[in-house]
C-alpha cells in the first residue's frame, strides 16, 4: 500500500450501485487510463448496498497492493450519497467519478483530466453514440427539455465520468438523484464547467430503460432541478404566481356568476360553476399560503442558507512591501465563513 503514503493527485470515486460490471475488469481498464493520464491516483469504491462478492474481489485487488479503498454502505442509499461517502474518504486535490460499469472508454480519461486546465469541473459526454434511433430520440428530447428548463445545454446527463477540483464537492452537498445535475449545480455556484466528448465504451448497453417508471423518474428529475435552480431562495415567486393566477381566475368567475345573477336573473344556486370558482379561490389562497410558509422557513434559516459564495478575499499588508506581498489571498470555503463579526468598539 505504498502509494497511499504519497498523497495522490487524483482520487477516483466509483460508486457501485444496482448496475455494475466485472469490477476487476473495470479496475484494470481505468488503471490503464489513469496511468496514461500521468497522475498519481487512488481509487475509492463505494459499495452502495450489500455487494459481498464485489467486496471480496476488491479486497483481493487491494491485497495485491493496488491503491484501493472500499467503503461499504449497509443499504442502497443512491448514487449521490455514495459519491459523498467516497468523497469523505478521499485525500487528493482532484476528484474523479467513474461509473462501475462500461460507459466510457478507459483510455479517454486523460482528456477529462486535461480539461481541468481551463475548468473546475469536466463532465464526460459519450460521443459518438451507438444506439437505436428510438433511444437517440428519447435522449435528445430529454436533454432538450432539461436544457430549456435549466438554461444550461448539457448533452449527456447520464454519463458518470467527471473530473473536478476538490472545492467543487466541498461546496456542493449532493443528495438524492442530484449527481446527474452536478454540472448544473456547479455552474450555479460559479464554477467553470466543461463538457468533453469521450469515446463510448463498446460494452455500454443499458437494458431496462424502457419502463414507464424510468420516464416518470426523469420527469421528476427535471422538476427537482427546476425548483432547485429557480425557486429555492424565493418560494413566493413561484407559489405566489401560481396562487395569484388561480385566485384571479376564481374571482373573475365568481364575478361573472354574480353579475349574471343580479342583472340577467340566472339562478345562482344551481350552478356547478359556483363550486368551481370557489374551489379556485380557495386553492389560490392555499398555494399562496404555502409560499408564505416557505418564505418564513427561508427567513428563519437565512443564516444557514447563504445565497452567495465568496471566491476569495484580496487584501494586503498594512505597510505594503516593495514586492506587494499579499497577506491574505485565499479561497474561503463557502459553507462556513470565518467569524467576521467583531466586538463593537
Amino acid at each position, binding site marked *: 500500500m505504498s502509494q497511499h503514503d504519497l498523497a495522490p493527485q487524483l482520487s477516483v470515486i466509483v460508486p457501485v450501485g444496482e448496475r455494475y460490471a466485472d469490477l476487476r475488469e473495470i479496475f484494470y481498464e481505468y488503471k490503464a487510463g489513469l496511468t496514461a493520464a500521468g497522475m498519481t491516483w487512488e481509487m475509492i469504491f463505494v459499495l452502495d448496498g450489500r455487494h459481498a462478492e464485489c467486496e471480496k474481489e476488491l479486497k483481493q485487488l487491494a491485497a495485491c497492493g493496488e491503491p484501493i479503498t472500499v467503503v461499504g454502505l449497509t443499504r442502497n442509499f443512491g448514487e449521490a450519497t455514495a459519491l459523498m461517502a467516497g468523497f469523505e474518504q478521499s485525500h487528493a486535490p482532484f476528484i474523479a467519478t467513474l461509473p462501475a460499469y462500461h460507459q466510457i472508454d478507459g483510455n479517454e480519461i486523460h482528456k477529462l483530466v486535461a480539461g481541468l486546465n481551463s475548468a473546475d469541473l469536466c463532465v464526460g459526454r459519450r460521443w459518438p453514440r451507438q444506439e437505436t434511433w428510438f433511444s437517440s430520440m428519447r435522449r435528445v428530447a430529454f436533454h432538450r427539455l432539461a436544457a430549456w428548463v435549466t438554461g444550461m445545454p448539457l448533452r449527456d446527463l447520464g454519463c458518470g465520468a467527471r473530473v473536478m477540483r476538490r472545492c467543487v464537492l466541498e461546496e456542493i452537498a449532493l443528495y438524492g438523484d442530484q449527481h446527474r445535475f452536478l454540472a448544473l449545480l456547479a455552474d450555479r*455556484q*460559479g*464554477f467553470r464547467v466543461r463538457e468533453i466528448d469521450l469515446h463510448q465504451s463498446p460494452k455500454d448497453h443499458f437494458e431496462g430503460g424502457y419502463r414507464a417508471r424510468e420516464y416518470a423518474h426523469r420527469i421528476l428529475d427535471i422538476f427537482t432541478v427546476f425548483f432547485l435552480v429557480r425557486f429555492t*431562495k*424565493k418560494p*413566493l*415567486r413561484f407559489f*405566489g404566481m401560481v396562487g395569484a393566477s388561480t385566485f384571479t381566475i376564481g374571482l373573475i368567475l365568481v364575478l361573472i356568476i354574480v353579475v349574471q345573477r343580479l342583472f340577467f336573473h340566472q339562478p*345562482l*344556486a*344551481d*350552478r*356547478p*360553476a*359556483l*363550486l368551481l370558482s*370557489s*374551489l379556485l379561490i*380557495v386553492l389560490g*389562497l*392555499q398555494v399562496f*399560503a*404555502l409560499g*408564505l*410558509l416557505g*418564505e*418564513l*422557513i*427561508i*427567513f*428563519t*434559516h*437565512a*443564516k444557514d*442558507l*447563504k*445565497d*452567495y*459564495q*465568496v*471566491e*476569495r*478575499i*484580496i*487584501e*494586503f*499588508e*498594512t*505597510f*505594503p512591501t516593495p514586492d*506587494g506581498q499579499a497577506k491574505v489571498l485565499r479561497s474561503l470555503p463557502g459553507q462556513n*465563513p470565518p467569524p*467576521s*463579526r*467583531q466586538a*463593537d*468598539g
Partner: protein
Amino acid sequence: MLENPRLSIIVPFFNEEESIRPLYAAIVAAISPLEVTFEMVFVDDGSSDGTVRIATELARSDSRVRVVKFRRNYGQTPAMAAGIEHARGEILVTMDGDLQNDPADIGLFLKKMDEGFDIVVGWRHDRKDKLISRKIPSRIANRLIGKVTGVPIMDNGCSLKAYRGALIKEIPLYSEMHRFIPAMASIAGPRIAEIKVRHHARQFGASKYGLSRVYRVLLDLMVIKTVTSFTARPLIWFSLLSLPLLILGTIVLVYTLVSSDPISLPVAGSGVVFMASAFILTSAGAFGELVYKLGDMRDYHFSRLTQRISRPHSPSQTRNS
C-alpha cells in the same frame, strides 16, 4: 489591520471598470478630512471586465481597500450582504459603484450616526434619472413600501445608507432585499433618520436595472410584511387570512340550512370548501409557529441590538457612548 476601523465603506461593483478608480479617489478625498479610521470593502459581483484587476491594484497600493470577489454574478443583494459580512467597521456605509452617489455626503451620514441613529438613509431629492421609467415608478413604490412596512422612507432605492455594524450584520439579507433593508431592519426597531444626498447622472456604462420588477417588488413586499411583523406570531397572521373564508363559509352554510328551499349542492359545497380552507390556513399558521420555533430568529435577540441601557451609577453604559 490590527485595529478595527470606525468606518467601512461597502461598494458592490458589477462591470464598472471606468468608475472604480474615480470612486476610490472620491472616497479617499471625502473621508480623509474627517479624521476617522476607515476601510473600503469592494465587492466584485462576478464582473467580466477589468474591475477585479483594477480593484486588486488599488488594494495593493492602499491597505485600506479589501476586495471580496464572487465567483459569478449573484446580484446586488448578495453583493451587499457579502460586503456587510466582511466589513469590520463600527459604522457601515453602503453605496453604488456607478458614481451616482457622492462620497462627499458620507460626512453627513457620520454626523447623523453620532447623534444616535442606528440607520441613516439617503434621499436623492434631486434625482438625475429618466422620469417615466425610473422616477415615477420609484415614487409609487416608495409610498407603497412606506405604507405597508410602516417605515416611511422617501427613497428606498438609494444605495447610500449608513448602518450600525452590530445591527446590520444580524439582519438577514437575501433574494432581492437590498431595496428593503430599512424595512427588513425594522424587526429590530432601529432609530432611522433620512437625509438629502446629491445624485449624479450616470457617467459610464448603462443602467443595469429596468422596469420589469413591479411584480417582484409586490411579492417581496408581501414577504417582508409577513416576516417582519408576523414572524413571532404566524398563527395569528394565517388566522387573519382565513377569517374572511370562515365568515363566508359560515354565512353560506347557515343560509343553506335555514332557507326552506331544498338544499342546493353547489352552494352547500362552496360553503364546505370555504370552511375547510379556513381550517387548513389556520393549520398552516400552526405549522408556521413550528418553523419559527426551529429557526434562529428571535424577537428578544433583535431587541438587544438596538436597546440602550442607562444606569445612574455607571455613566458609560450606553452602547453608543
